[in-house]
């Protein structure tokens, strides 16, 4: 199963943490530090896999992708396939990109709840349930639509769209 999904900035700051087995906050920070330490020391042009035995237990591995200022990291055990996980990161990023139209780090910080929604559509209880980014997006949009209609008023400042219009 997948143990955790993490988005960590190249500065070592957590941007999104989702653990599929509960971890107390201190342990979460330890994991972030460990993972960041393991990833930041790796040169470019090497494999995207790292052993994570010492932090997640025997047989666990990390698959990561380094993108601009972020590391996107999936931690999982031996019941998953590394290459497939690498593609899952790809699906995740693609979905985010469609979701936010040119996703940037800022989107991820401010909308971490939306990221959780996206992840919940992809991975449930540590198992992959959906890998088609269009399908994921459809579900997420469904939720957003209902949320929007149910919320009394949007806080989205009209001024922005007005200014864009000019």
């Amino acid at each position, binding site marked *: 199963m997948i143990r955790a999904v993490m988005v960590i900035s190249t500065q070592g700051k957590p941007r999104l943490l989702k653990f599929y087995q509960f971890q107390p906050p201190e342990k979460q920070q330890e994991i972030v530090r460990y993972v960041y330490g393991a990833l930041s020391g790796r040169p470019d042009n090497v494999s995207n896999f790292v052993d994570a035995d010492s932090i997640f237990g025997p047989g666990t591995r990390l698959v990561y992708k380094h993108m601009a200022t972020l590391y996107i990291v999936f931690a999982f055990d031996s019941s998953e396939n590394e290459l497939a996980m690498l593609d899952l990161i790809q699906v995740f990023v693609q979905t985010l990109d469609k979701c936010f139209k040119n996703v940037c780090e800022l989107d991820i910080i401010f909308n971490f709840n939306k990221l959780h929604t996206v992840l919940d559509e992809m991975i449930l209880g540590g198992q992959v349930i959906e890998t088609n980014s269009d399908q994921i997006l459809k579900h997420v949009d469904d939720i957003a639509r209902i949320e929007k209609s149910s919320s009394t008023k*949007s806080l989205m400042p009209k001024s922005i769209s007005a200014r864009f219009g000019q």
Partner: protein
Amino acid sequence: MEQLKSFGRELAMGSQGGSSKEFLDLVKSIGEARSKSEEDRIILRELETLRRRLSEPDIPRRKMKEYLLRLAYAEMLGHDASFGYIHAVKMAHDDNILLKRTGYLTVALFLDEGHDLIILIVNTIQKDLRSDNYLVVSAALVAVCKLISEETIPAVLPQVVELLGHPKEAVRKKAVMALHRFYQRSPSSVSHLVSNFRKRLCDNDPGVMGATLCPLFDLILEDANSYKDLVVSLVSILKQIAEKRLPTTYDYHHMPAPFIQIKLLKILALLGSGDKQASSHMYTVLTEIFRKCESSSNIGNAIIYECVCCVSSIYPNSKVLDAAIEATSKFLKSESHNLKYMGIDALGRLIRINPDIAEEHQLAVIDCLEDPDDTLKRKTFELLYKMTKSTNVEVIVDRMIDYMINITDSHYKTEIASRCVELAEQFAPSNQWFIQTMNKVFEHAGDLVNPRVAHNLMRLIAEGFGEDDEGADTQLRSSAVDSYLRILGEPKLPSLFLQVICWVLGEYGTADGKYSASYIIGKLCDVAEAHSSDDTVKAYAVSAIMKIFSFELAAGRKVEMLPECQTLIDEVLASHSTDLQQRAYEFQALLGLSPQVIENVMPPDASCEDIEIDKSLPFLSNYINQAIENGARPYVSESERSGTASTITVASASQYQHDTSSVHSLKFEAYELPKPRGPAPSIQSSSMSSLPTISSDLVPVSDATYTTREEQQNPKVQTLADQISAEIGVRLRLDGVQKKWGRQTYSSPSAPSTSSSSSTQKPSNGMVTSETIRESTLDSRKQQIPEVSAEKQRLAASLFGKKAVEKKTQAGTRRPVKEIQPAVATSAPEAPKEDKVIAPAAPPPDLLDLGEPSETATQTIDPFKQLEGLLGPGAGSDGASGPGPSVSDVATADLMSMVTDMPPIIDSKSSDKGVISSTVAKKGPNVKDALQKDATARQVGVTPTGNNPNLFKDLLG
């Protein structure tokens, strides 16, 4: 500028869709924080604000949502937000789906399934599972997966089971996963529902079917036999998927439902393991997948890899196995580190079926071993560990140790150290090598290895080969002493290693007469002094000094008491450790004895003598007779006293004698021994207590411990020593290991040397000798790079054995010859084509090590080397002067570098590019948008390095 700032804020808030300026400011100030402490201060302040706000009455619900998200954010950064948990639970109660989802999300982030507040949320979940709105049901199911513990499963189980029949496939899928989660939490809670999983396997939505595979995988992992009936249907599902019968929405990168295929293959691997009949159903579909899968995409390779795993797990079939081997070799020859990693892993699985498979890929393996990628290196060590035998153990363990020295990760260091020890103990070709290897392991990872290893090492040094070759044993010991005296110069040595060193120096330091007693004693004093806080090391040092003194005195030589030694003894006499004190007192007492007595007390090199114990204690007979004559009552054994004479005891000598010849009853004696009987027991118990306080199976040689008793009870000592040694003999039961240290494999060093001579031969004479033919057919790559291959060949030969190399000639001639033929025939301008074929396989590690950051740099150098190699043998076979790649070669190499610049770039990006090209096209006109975002980002201070407006540009095109 001001305008831009506010603009950016609005923009950021807009994309957030509901957060306030405060959150933005928080993120901004955290982004600008210069230190961790400053960041902590900011968050603590934020938490204080939130605490205050949350305690206010009548908070608007939308505000509350934002507060909770801010709490979640603070907690993600590692701060305690537990005061707000209850509000999250309350929010999950809300009717508004937006707020409810936020509530569920934060609860899932905050709470552990065992948290007290969980009980409050169960009711909400129950209600939501019954909702008409499938999104509410979905949200509740997500929460179920996260929050329901073993105790609360019964509360929601019926509803979840009901949802397996929900009209929406998304809900069914999640219900299956929830049940899976229940199974993981408590298998017994859902054991009666297993049939439901089987039923869902036939769900008409492939997504639900795919989800069902997850719980099935776990169930089959537990007990494969109950699910053998599924093999046929699973195979047919896999076949249908592979034949693209699923709707195209399940395609991913042109592969039909790859994640489902992978899961299916994993399950089949479990079901087919060791089952010939079940496996026979799978061969066709596996062959099919091998044939169909395109290896150009990442996900295609993932499936191929999974097939290889499946093949290596099920009952072997030569045809499928060949396909798997071919796929593996493709991985290994790939340029991508990821694929190489998978290849090494796959190879590790395949060699379990047939160890010879590895031989074909020896150079690829060695390449991976020298790769700068740490992950790949570790994986390769894992492979080598699996294929270690007595012929290649030296090379492998040496490599492992070299690697071990340079890593800092103590977890992995421990693992690799214990692997080194394990391999060395199992396959050591000679004791000398074993000791040297152990020295290295101890020196660099001594604190991480098991103490048992240290005692094995001492035992080995004491016992030697276990054959009647005293000379070799002596040589072994003196070389150990030499090496230890040298190592003592190192500044920091692990405690365990120092113990070994002290013991060996004490026992054998002066044995060969090379070093004077005072020299060794001086060294030992230094050790004790340098490690004054380590009592165990000190105890070993004092005992060692005592041994050297007594050996010298027993031999009739005079030993002068060095001042530092005297200081040490004085200090230890006053030590808080009673063990140390006793050693010092014993030492003092020993110095006052006569040489004959000392020799009896401390016989040189007697640590592993077999000592006979005469339990009848004949030396006491005089004393007893005297006592009886003086009117004492004769001793009546316990059994005789109680009248149960049938029980065997130690008491009477005749009975003892009798029993030795009889059967197992003897065993009782060992247990009877410690019981108080006459004067002996006191000695025994004291000697036992004076053993160093380490765990019982360590048993350092303790001949130093019974000396004080010595003065009064001279004659007994030998027996006592016997007893102790006998115990040592009993405890160190390592006879099984002895065989493995046998010398039959000693010839292995010759293998590398012969092959190295052959490889040095090659460049010097241009003629193609029989040796070079062998090498050139070994692997097409090998002959391309003469210098690199010389070393690699040596390594390969030593790793895979000379025999293996020769065998390989027959096996390998098929393919390589084909590749060589054109290589020799083609002229220089055409060479690039060859080069491209070769380039992926040979990334010269030395060049990468130089730390050239750009990929192209290595690429440009690479072809040159290859060309040089290419032409070398060709010229040689023409009879021209052999290794003389002249100016023209260099020129062509340059040309080539320009040509070969192109492919790698395309290669590395093409897979991503092809797929996302649509997104790229869409992005074109959006650069402005991206720039604006970036401006905001920078202004907020979250992307200090972000000179790239689109963060994922590198990924997406």
